[in-house]
């Protein structure tokens, strides 16, 4: 009984103290930004191509490792904050291009062969690719001893060394208190959403993509090169996955490791499904939803109201199950999308 009163007290405390509420909201926004970066590549690819890209998480993990290597190679740790951020953004752009290239190769050489098969075969193919990529990275990492203390190439666990000191702490401005890294995350999240929205709604290619989602055969009949559009979208989706890995590398909750691939893939699925397959708007809303709930869960854990350590993951999958029970097509899902085997 007393425990329950305490929880109630904590809740009251949260909602009566604006500074604490704002802190939780900022954290939720930061989490949502990460989620939207993780999930939007997946949703782009699925929306147009009906391909659930299981290798998505592996791309993110590759992006994180490569970014770590690059940043260390440049020696960013010794630079000033402004310089580090510039280097960071350049690295992110590079990783985007590299992963987009890898995605292009994969689409042209492998995924393309299976478009006339039932969708399950594309799931299977990308799943096989994901296993191979992850294990290859594990081989490489163990071989280089990156996580074991022997550094052949001077690669260290990239996160800790490369995060500039200015981004490590927290800042207080009046009532507001936030982790510095969260500012960068929120900015990048907003940029990602705006960029993808602009691409889809303000560019010629985006028009092709939307036409393809709407009715692929009709789009092809009107002279749109659907095949090429598929390749471009797959490349962009893969690139975004890699770029997301770059920021995950700096976030203390994620950091870089081989299991990052799976740790990214599953929440990304959840967000895409909760938002509704193929709907970018849905993905953004679902990211906000999951991010906020995640932040409140973390807060509840910190106050001691909940003592279960796996609360984050539990809630993410709880949201998935509850959403599918209440709203089987997700928030903004289209009837018929993703129903077939």
């Amino acid at each position, binding site marked *: 009984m007393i425990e329950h009163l305490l929880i109630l007290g904590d809740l009251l405390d949260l909602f009566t103290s604006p500074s604490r509420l704002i802190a939780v909201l900022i954290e939720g926004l930061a989490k949502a930004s990460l989620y939207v970066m993780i999930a939007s590549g997946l949703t782009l690819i699925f929306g147009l*191509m*009906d391909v*659930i890209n299981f290798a998505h998480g592996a791309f993110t993990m590759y992006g994180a490792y490569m970014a770590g290597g690059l940043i260390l190679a440049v020696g960013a740790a010794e630079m000033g904050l402004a310089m580090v951020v510039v280097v960071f953004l350049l690295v992110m752009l590079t990783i985007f291009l590299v992963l987009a290239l890898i995605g292009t190769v994969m689409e042209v050489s*492998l995924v*393309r*062969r*299976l*478009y*006339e*098969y*039932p*969708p*399950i*075969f594309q799931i*299977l*193919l990308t*799943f*096989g*690719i*994901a*296993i*191979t*990529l*992850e*294990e*290859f990275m*594990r*081989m490489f990492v*163990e071989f280089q001893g990156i996580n074991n203390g022997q550094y052949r190439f001077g690669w260290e666990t990239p996160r800790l060394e490369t995060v500039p000191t200015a981004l490590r702490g927290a800042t207080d401005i009046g009532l507001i208190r936030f982790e510095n890294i969260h500012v960068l995350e929120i900015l990048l999240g907003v940029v990602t959403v705006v960029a993808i929205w602009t691409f889809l709604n303000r560019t010629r290619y985006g028009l092709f993509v939307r036409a*393809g*989602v709407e*009715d*692929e*055969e009709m789009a092809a009949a009107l002279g749109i090169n*659907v*095949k090429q559009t598929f390749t471009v979208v797959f490349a962009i989706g893969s690139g975004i996955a890699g770029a997301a890995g770059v920021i995950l590398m700096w976030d203390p909750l994620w950091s870089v490791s081989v299991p990052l691939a*799976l740790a990214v893939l*599953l929440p990304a*699925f*959840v967000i895409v*499904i909760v938002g509704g*397959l193929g709907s970018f708007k849905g993905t953004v809303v679902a990211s906000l939803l999951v991010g906020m709930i995640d932040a409140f869960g973390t807060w509840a854990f910190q106050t001691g109201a909940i003592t*279960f*350590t*796996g609360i984050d*993951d*539990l809630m993410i*999958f*709880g949201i*998935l*199950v509850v959403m*599918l*029970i209440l709203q*089987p*097509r997700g928030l903004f899902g289209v009837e*018929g999308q*993703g*129903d*077939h*085997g």
Partner: protein
Amino acid sequence: MSTDTAAPEAADEGSALAPWVGGYLRDHAIHIAVVAFFIVYPFLYDVLVGQFGLPAEMLLPRLQTMLVVLWLGLFAMSFDFISGYTGYLSFGHAAFFGIGAYTVVLGANGQLPLLPGGLSFMTLMLVSALLAVVVALLIGLVSFRLSGVYFAMITLGFAEIMYVASRNWDWLTPGQSDPSDGINTPADFNPELGVPFVDPLQVETGVFGDDAILGINFGDLLVYNENLGAIVASYFAIGAVVLVCYLAMQRIIHSPFGRVMIAIRENEERAKAIGYDTFKFKLGAFMISAFFGAVAGALLVAYRGSVNPDAAFFFLVTGFALVAAIIGGLGTLAGPFFGYIFLEGIEEFLARGGSGGGLQPFLEEFLPGGILEMTIGGDLTISGALDAFMTGHGEFYAGIIFVIFVLYVPIGILGTLRLRLGADSVATYVSRRLGGSTGTGGSGGGGKSAAAESTTAAESVTAEGGEEDAPREGGGPAEGGE
């Protein structure tokens, strides 16, 4: 074990007993041959490795591997039972494997509410399987309102919730270590498999279990590896359970119930239109498959005596069942089992898991030292490269093989075999050849083959063209490419 030996013995007496026995044996000739091979395998392995040493050890899967394949293969079969036959991808199937394993361990630790402590392993296995059936009912009631990707994702969601719980829930390990490290059965818990109430047919499984069944000591029968007796005994005991489960599932597939499952896969709308309540059939199939999935999990505990979240509820447990099912042939019941043998065999060959076996020791033995010490680049020698790429990274090769199968052999080993032989199943083909006539003859073969023939045709269509799916998709975006 009793089933294993009974079959070949009966073969000799077949003609004297009754006419139907001959027909029955003919229908199951391939099953008998396969079971016979599995019975002989430990002794074959023993003799070949003893005689030829390293080359044989390189090529043949170790007995420990074959033992692991038994329960993993059973799990893959139970996964195929629902996914391959009804077309509903049960992506969280590991939930049932985990329930099977965890229930047995918790029961052995006396932690299950409402149950007395000190129950025998067989009882616990049954309890765990029934619990899995109940959980499958609950999950199914919610999930079968969805289809396609949504169904796959909601089952995955349930399994992941269980995975998170199994990693973090302190109740699982009272006063012990971190639950994510797994739980052990108590030291005095001796899992006994066998025919209930027949004492001589009880086998204590595990590395330190019995090494004799019916007074036959396997340690004595093995010429070169006497110390493997307990493993062989466990192999037979667990193999017998797997065989019984396989036959039960096969029986269900060939029953009218199984026909409806296939009808649901081929065209659910049509099955509904004919008047079948497909929801109930899907739910029933899901519960049956959960039952066998949990038995597979319990068998894991029977041998290992412990369980951890990553070996039970983890997403990749389902993932590799899926890989095995595709390699062996989705929608062929025995296929996933052979798929697992193939997968584990290749993994062991290219990336030995534990001790011994595989290509690497062979190369290190037979390649001259000069080549081994040659440097490839930097300070990396060939033997160093062998160490880095051929020890313990089986998933890398499994992934590559899987991709090749998806691209070039999408209907899997058994599926391709069926297509080549032009029969609804390899078993029917063999029995037809043995029978010498064009009809299936024997007992109960006639109606069976006609119904199943269409399955093969449909399978090849699904795998090769996807035309069968076109009307269902209603002009969705899936019809891409050429």
